């Protein structure tokens, strides 16, 4: 069972109509990812990394091909099913943190839990666990503007893992961070896959970041080259 891939991608294509021009962002991508892997997607700008990540995370839909996550073909889910699916199965980390400025760190982390049936005591407990995991146990009541970029990104990671999803996706999570903070963030993502058994998929174009992953994939013009 453990060897069963969590992500199965077959002949995935995605094209956009830019004016009269048909832009192909993904061109027949096939890919298997095993549970607990830390996959790093590399490649030049515009090669389709984000597009692939978005489709796997269920926030974008392919033009053709299939994306099976944990045995579910997510293309078959409707908008609201997909929303529920994301809430339960995917944690997002973005380049620009994307925390809600009027909420404290703890409240930001709690957001995805508001959609669950958990009691407020249970929610508080999970929030505390998640903040502890990213080393911000004592920063729960700080607002984003009172924290450094590295701390904000760690709050974002706590928000991504608070629902205990199987899959964590990160699109250039260190793109806005200094080397030290980037190292912290990457170490956390690495430990999530290594110690907590999460499947992590991260987009980056920094080879040093790629070293934290368990496997690197190269995209070029919408195709996997290595």
């Amino acid at each position, binding site marked *: 069972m453990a060897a069963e891939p969590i992500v199965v991608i077959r002949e995935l294509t995605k094209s956009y109509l830019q004016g009269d021009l048909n832009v192909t962002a993904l061109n027949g991508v096939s890919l298997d990812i095993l549970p607990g892997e830390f996959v790093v997607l590399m490649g030049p700008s515009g090669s389709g990394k984000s597009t692939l990540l978005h489709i796997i*995370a269920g926030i*974008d839909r392919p033009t053709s091909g299939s994306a099976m996550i944990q045995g579910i073909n997510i293309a078959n889910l409707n908008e609201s099913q997909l929303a*529920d699916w994301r*809430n339960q199965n995917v944690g*997002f980390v973005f380049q*620009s943190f*994307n925390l809600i400025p009027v909420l404290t760190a703890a409240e930001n982390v709690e957001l995805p839990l*508001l959609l669950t049936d958990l009691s407020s005591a249970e929610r508080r407990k999970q929030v505390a666990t998640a903040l502890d995991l990213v080393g911000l146990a004592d920063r729960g009541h700080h607002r984003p503007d009172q924290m450094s970029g590295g701390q904000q990104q760690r709050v974002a990671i706590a928000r991504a893992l608070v629902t205990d999803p199987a899959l964590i996706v990160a699109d250039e999570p260190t793109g806005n961070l200094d080397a030290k903070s980037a190292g912290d963030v990457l170490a956390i993502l690495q430990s999530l896959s290594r110690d907590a058994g999460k499947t992590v998929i991260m987009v980056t174009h920094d080879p040093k970041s790629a070293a934290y992953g368990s496997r690197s994939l190269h995209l070029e013009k919408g195709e996997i080259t290595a």
Partner: protein
Amino acid sequence: MTLTSFVVKNALRNRRRAALTIISVAISCGLLVTLLTLQRELTIPPESEAASLRIIARNKVSLAQPLPAKQLSTIEKIPGVVAVSPFTFFGGNFREETVTSFAQFAVDPVRFRNLIIEGRIAEGSYDDFINDRTSCFVGADTMKRYGLKIGDRMRFTGTFYPVDLDLKIIAVYQGTVDDRGVFFHHKLLDELMGNPGTVGTWYLRVASAEASNEVIARVNEAFANTSAEVRAETERAFQMGFISMLGNVKLLIGSVSSVVVFTLLLVTVSTMSMAVRERFRELAVLKALGFRRRELFSFILAESFGLALLGGSIGIFGAWALWTGIDLQKLTNGFLLYFEVTPRIMATGGVVAVFLGIVSAISPSIAVARLSVVQGLKTLD
């Protein structure tokens, strides 16, 4: 944190804008309630058919100038006049009061009977009023206000007239537009004044509302070029002090109310659009986290509803408190009688606020429904 506190935090994130929105909704709703109350005040008489059947004829020079009592025989003969009585405003102060807080009129009880159209005798008998020349016929509101009962005496100190009155309450009426007035025998006033042979005004009843303009013209004409020319007008026109403008005023108030509502709509719609547009990226993030359209709609609706209802409540209840607390009748010398902010008017204001809340949520909701997560994430902060 709960979903409710999340909505509240979002709504208050731009405190100054939220405050300005609430204040403008409050002021506009208060203004609307005031305008509707004014409109009601001005339309009470036309709604009462009786008031358009009655005409008051006064001295053309001024209201304070009396008219000769002998005009009665001429007026009686004018076609279209069904009944006529002398009608003299006494303007006395009740008991120890230093202002005239309700009107007293000297009338001819027998003739006056035919001028009473609306309302009913609540207590006592009108015949007793006719038969007792020191009795008075009192409105139920005044009875209640002073805790009076049949048989009590009402003493008035004259202000226009250098005489005082001491009247016995013999009958009570109720159900007219204004249940406050006190009516007494004109003969009593004549005696006290030494029979000057004058009346304050004439009170006429016409056969139909359509006939009133014609009768008014005939009455005015009958005394043209005499030593006491008269000016006749319908009862309500007399009270309000203007005639033809009434229709225009209603139209004006209606238009101003519509403009108020429309402007208010622009304010709330643009506030909500701004509030949502600047949060597009966050809404996209919420979508990514698993929030569905339904939830995002309810956030937006709750926010716009909250702002509109809070502002609306402040405005509506503020106007109610203001107009209930102020004695407008005194301030306006009786021009505004009741200026009552009725539950119906308050409900209308409430409906407008709810309508604003819903309408201003529509366009942001559509924008959010269309928003794709990927597009939303690309929007710059």
